[in-house]
């Protein structure tokens, strides 16, 4: 069986989303970001909203999101994406505005902006990649790092007595009246990817329909930061992270 047979139309089950361009991604092989970028691009295209979508990228591994998905983007200062998105949406109420943030950006330095944007019920969608580590800076402890998990800034493992427990920020956000959707998903299996895509679509639809703030947390793997190969990282994630961060809807109005 040669390459042509393998990539013929009859065997095609997946194509590169139209809005994802040919720029070589900087993400490590096995990283969840690539999958979620593709989902975001597919959903925007399926909704036909490429011309009215503005994305806000974070500081962290997704700082270069604008290079890969062909929509208008603003890259925000570390943690401030929800504030940036707030203004974009308030000033352009007919646009679909979303942020794309990691755990350090959203749940550490940007906690205040996240909570207050959600509490105001800003009509934005927040895509939250939770991989329990700072990937961009080389594997330091994140607010979502699991207890006993080893990182470069907790080399003996996270000790909750000194460093606190993994922050379940989406559980907190679900309590706020401004939030219409708070859901936790993952992308480690084909079924999970499909479910995550459905929730991203719902979040984007909510933002456009001015229903309030939608948060889609994606429990993700960072095989490079975790010092594992991609397969082991996926397995480790399923075995260890999902018990602390169980998938499912925390709120879906």
């Amino acid at each position, binding site marked *: 069986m040669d390459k042509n047979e393998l990539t013929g139309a009859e065997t095609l089950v997946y194509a590169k989303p139209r809005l994802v361009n040919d720029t070589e991604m900087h993400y490590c092989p096995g990283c969840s970001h690539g999958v979620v970028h593709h989902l975001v691009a597919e959903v925007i295209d399926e909704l036909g909203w490429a*011309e009215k979508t*503005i994305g806000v990228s974070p500081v962290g591994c997704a700082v270069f999101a604008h290079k890969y998905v062909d929509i208008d983007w603003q890259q*925000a200062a570390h943690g401030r994406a929800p504030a*940036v998105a707030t*203004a974009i949406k308030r*000033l352009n109420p007919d646009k679909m505005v979303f942020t794309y943030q990691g755990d350090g950006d959203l749940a550490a330095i940007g906690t205040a902006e996240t909570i*207050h944007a959600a509490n105001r019920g800003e009509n934005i969608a927040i895509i939250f990649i939770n991989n329990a580590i700072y990937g961009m800076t080389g594997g330091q402890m994140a607010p979502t790092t699991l207890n006993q998990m080893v990182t470069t800034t907790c080399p003996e493992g996270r000790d909750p007595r000194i460093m606190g427990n993994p922050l379940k920020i989406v559980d907190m956000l679900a309590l706020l009246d401004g939030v219409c959707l708070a859901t936790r998903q993952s992308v480690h299996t084909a079924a999970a990817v499909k479910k995550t895509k459905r929730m991203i679509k719902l979040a984007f639809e909510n933002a456009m329909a001015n229903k309030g703030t939608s948060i889609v947390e994606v429990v993700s793997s960072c095989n490079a930061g975790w010092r594992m190969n991609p397969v082991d990282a996926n397995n480790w994630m399923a075995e260890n992270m999902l018990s602390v961060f169980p998938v499912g809807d925390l709120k879906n109005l």
Partner: protein
Amino acid sequence: MSEEISLMKGNEAIAHAAVRYGADGYFGYPITPQSEIIETLMELAPWKTTGMIVMQAESELAAINMVYGGAGCGKAVMTSSSSTGMSLKMEGISYIAAGELPCLLVNVMRGGPGLGTIQPSQSDYFQTVKGGGHGDYRLITLAPYSVQEMADFVALGFDLAFKYRTPSMILTDGVIGQMMEKVRLPEFKRRRSEEEIRKQCPWATLGRTPDRAPNFLTTLEMDSSLMEQRNIHLQAKYKEIQQNEVRYQEVLCDDADYLLVAFGSAARICLKTVDLARAEGLKVGLLRPITLWPFPSEILEKYASKVKGMLTVELNAGQMVEDVRLAVNGKMPVEHYGRLGGIVPTPDHVLEALKKLI
């Protein structure tokens, strides 16, 4: 009809002028002595008339990043704060300058350092004109000395910001912010439509259209040689601003033996000192920088060979005096008189200090 004379505070004048300019958004956080700006805007409720958005943010950090987001869409957006709050905004201001985003910033200064005092001061001169935030950037800095100029500099600040795609700052203090004077408010201008913004600001992130590539706003460049190019571009723009936008006022400078150099509220005080000095037969003039950056170095250099001495008067420990000395370049003595921590000198205090110099 809309051009009427009113009596109001400097802070209120800024709010009225912003609505009348056709500003799209204000994002702020309360802090004394400038809270009248957001309070007046909330009372004016321009979202019901012009469509301008007014938001009280959860912090100065959020407010300045809202300005970043709005400015990135090509909208005419602004924020205001006072010294300690302005320090919090500095990271965002650096991003805004790096992103080449037009916007209007207002700092109604109070005494520092630290939480300081709510009384007036001019001790954020360094922070504003020398940096404040990180990196090689500059802020167009306008220093009003009357309620009228508070109103007028809103339009001037926005216009310069859009002309050069760079943030403008109105640097004022609790004296000008809180005092009431007659003011002629500007005519109402219509807010720009999205179509007009897309035309004026083709870089704005308003959603890509089929006729253009996606717009993205970023201040990050991993390749140092490209980052250097970005910096060179910024510096070329700053040079152009320095060549075109210097503003100052000369009061009785022509025959002066001594010059007072002061901005904002200190200049207002010095205006009276000039009268007092002249009444005593002393030939004293006032040179008032209106733009603190770009700084009016050339005119000061010109007077350096004409007058016997200069006294800079500031509500700080001596900040602008450094730029005056640089401009004069040792040709003659330049002394400083200042009060600190919220104390405002009287014209007599200034005259006394001037006489010591003479």
